[in-house]
């Protein structure tokens, strides 16, 4: 592997050393300086059109577009000099002259880069006295609405559809100040990855129909998580308002999803806001299932498990931690899971990134931990076994399949209809309400965190399982999911050496995972 040549320069007085070929804008990031910009995005080819990133380079006659200019030895770059600030102020003024200035009704408000930079470096007023250009809003199809009057023509959306999605549905129409983003009539943004243009749009020109008028950016609570909707394991931010999930957006991870997530994943968060929850532990008494307290319920479950062979029907949405603890409950028995399937939908411009066929977060983890993937979920249930239903809703399975179980313990967020004969119900948090790790299809272990509070008396699944294991005599003392993971790592060689600290929020591959390389590098130059 050839030695990369390093280039040394100074940016705002700070010495910077970067690999030859790096742009000034990327080099500035390493010095902790974010040069304001719009059209540049590290996941897209360089355009250099917004002219916002112009910086002063000593001894150069003109300001340089830092997103499109590579570093040179000994360069002295001024990002905050009068000339640079003046140029950016000029761009901001020009971007606003035809802008409707409708922040009060614009969804982007609070997370708008036009707002941000104008507050930071723009004018307080506008000198524009002429009539403003007007074009009506357009439905682009899929999840996307286009509001041309707010558009700054950065062309990120066009470049995404062209160079990453490989489906050039969007284009620039007209010329000069009449230009706007267009799509051909009859063609829609129904590409499985099209909604990424909404994230990419720095302003409120491209909006999500799903999110329209639902919440203000500053009302949202945000947590880092992993998309649960397929085995790719795209890194996401879960956003909630008043304890309801209202949006999921991608988080960059160069080893998993680059900067993107698919529309199916992004828009499929409502199931985590499920109603009809079991909110209290339940134990079967003389009159059927009745609400109980945790101690009693755990004890009842422990009695039911005592000495019996266990069959676990688990959900592949459960975390590594919970699945690991479930295997310890098996007591010589076995476990299985089933997973819904759909069409694979790759994002052609990024290596090894697709909406995967298997639509659950932890299929790989479940298999690694000893669960059998099957289409017949209860096929392995033996006569007289204790059936532990963990996280599964048993949709499509009727009570007759459950009949041969000796006893049924439900550990889940809902009580499945087919599990009506359950003797104990232990209510747990769903995926968005607890913390844990999942393993994606390439064997990468990634952490997800709690986005919202679970209702009633429900508890995290790993906590409940830990208590249950304690009640049947296994030594456990878990106060944190990281402790469960530590035990998993020490007992399973695939997970050896991993910890929550080392996983961080980018994750790490299992010891025996096939090797992968990072996705396409930062900012490929246009043509």
């Amino acid at each position, binding site marked *: 592997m050839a030695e990369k040549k390093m280039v040394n320069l100074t940016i705002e007085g700070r010495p910077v050393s970067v690999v030859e070929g790096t742009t000034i804008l990327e080099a500035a990031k390493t010095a902790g300086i974010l040069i304001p910009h719009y059209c540049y995005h590290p996941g897209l080819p360089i355009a250099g059109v917004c002219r916002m990133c112009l910086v002063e380079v000593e001894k150069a006659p003109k300001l340089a577009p830092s997103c499109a200019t590579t570093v040179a030895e000994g360069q002295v770059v001024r990002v905050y000099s009068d000339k640079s600030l003046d140029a950016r102020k000029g761009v901001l003024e020009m971007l606003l002259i035809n802008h409707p200035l409708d922040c009060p009704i614009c969804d982007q408000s609070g997370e708008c880069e036009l707002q941000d930079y104008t507050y930071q470096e723009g004018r307080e007023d506008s000198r524009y006295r002429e009539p403003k250009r007007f074009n009506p809003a357009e439905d682009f199809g899929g999840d996307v609405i286009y509001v041309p009057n707010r558009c700054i023509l950065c062309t990120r959306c066009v470049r995404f559809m062209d160079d990453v999605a490989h489906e050039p549905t*969007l284009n620039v*129409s007209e010329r000069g100040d009449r230009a706007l983003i267009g799509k*051909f009539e*009859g063609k829609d943004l129904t590409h499985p990855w099209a909604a990424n243009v909404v994230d990419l749009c720095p302003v409120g020109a491209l909006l999500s129909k799903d999110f329209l008028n639902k919440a203000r950016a500053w009302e949202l609570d945000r947590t880092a998580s992993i998309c649960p909707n397929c085995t790719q394991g795209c890194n996401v931010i879960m956003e909630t308002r008043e304890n309801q999930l209202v949006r999921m957006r991608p988080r960059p991870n160069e080893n998993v999803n680059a900067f993107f997530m698919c529309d199916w994943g992004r828009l499929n968060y409502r199931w985590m806001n499920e109603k009809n929850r079991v909110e209290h532990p339940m134990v079967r008494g003389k009159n059927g299932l009745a609400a109980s307290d945790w101690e009693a319920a755990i004890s009842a479950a422990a009695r039911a498990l005592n000495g019996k062979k266990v069959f676990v029907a688990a959900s592949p949405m459960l975390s590594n931690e919970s699945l690991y603890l479930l295997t310890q409950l098996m007591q010589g028995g076995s476990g299985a899971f089933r997973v819904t399937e759909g069409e694979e939908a790759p994002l052609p411009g990024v290596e090894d990134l697709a909406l995967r066929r298997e639509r659950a977060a932890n299929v790989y983890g479940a298999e690694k931990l000893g669960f059998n993937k099957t289409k017949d979920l209860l096929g392995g249930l033996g006569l007289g076994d204790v059936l532990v239903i963990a996280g599964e809703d048993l949709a499509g399975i009727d009570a007759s399949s459950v009949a041969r179980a000796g006893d049924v313990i439900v550990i889940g967020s809902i009580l499945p209809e087919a599990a009506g004969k359950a003797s104990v119900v232990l209510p747990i948090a769903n995926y968005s309400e607890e913390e844990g790790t999942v393993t994606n299809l390439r064997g990468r272990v990634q952490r997800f965190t709690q986005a919202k509070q679970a209702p009633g008396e429900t508890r995290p699944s790993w906590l409940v399982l830990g208590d249950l294991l304690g009640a049947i005599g296994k030594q456990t003392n878990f106060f944190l999911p990281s402790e469960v993971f530590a035990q998993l790592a020490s007992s399973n060689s695939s997970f050896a050496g991993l910890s929550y600290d080392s996983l961080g929020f980018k994750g790490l591959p299992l010891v025996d995972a096939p090797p992968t390389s990072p996705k396409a590098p930062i900012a490929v130059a246009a043509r």
Partner: protein
Amino acid sequence: MTGVGSTEPAKSGALYDEIQAIRALYPEDSESAVLPALRLAQREHGWLSPDVLRDVADALETTPAYCKSIASFYDQLHLAPIGEHLVEVCTNVSCAVVGAQQVVEAFESELGCRAGETSEDGKVTLRTVECLGGCGWATIVAVDHHYRTHVKADGVPAIVEELTSGA
């Protein structure tokens, strides 16, 4: 699934073949043929309707969105219907200082429509355009893409007569 017109791609027919011949003049993976192809299609059909754009896109193995994006960039490609004849008067500076505005007004008066519009009988579309590169013979009027030179307001009726009489 689209709304307007035929969704059958134009895999056969004169336009398709002519476009393949144009493509052969340029390097294999290039899209250079789009401009001459659009020009050709426009000559045949008068203007570039969504159907025509679809046909051109099929012949070029690209998308109608792409063709529309190209067509909307260039002044000589029409995405709206035009009349039988196209009259384009240059109003840029060199012609403006020798009376181009009067020529435009004379056309508007004779044709009964404003610049940018088509006469009621559909015979003539009048447009004002930018410098046509004939400044030494101002005022230049391009009639169906061929230049008339030294046009003055009083010469306009004769031009209109020529275009509107006959077929």
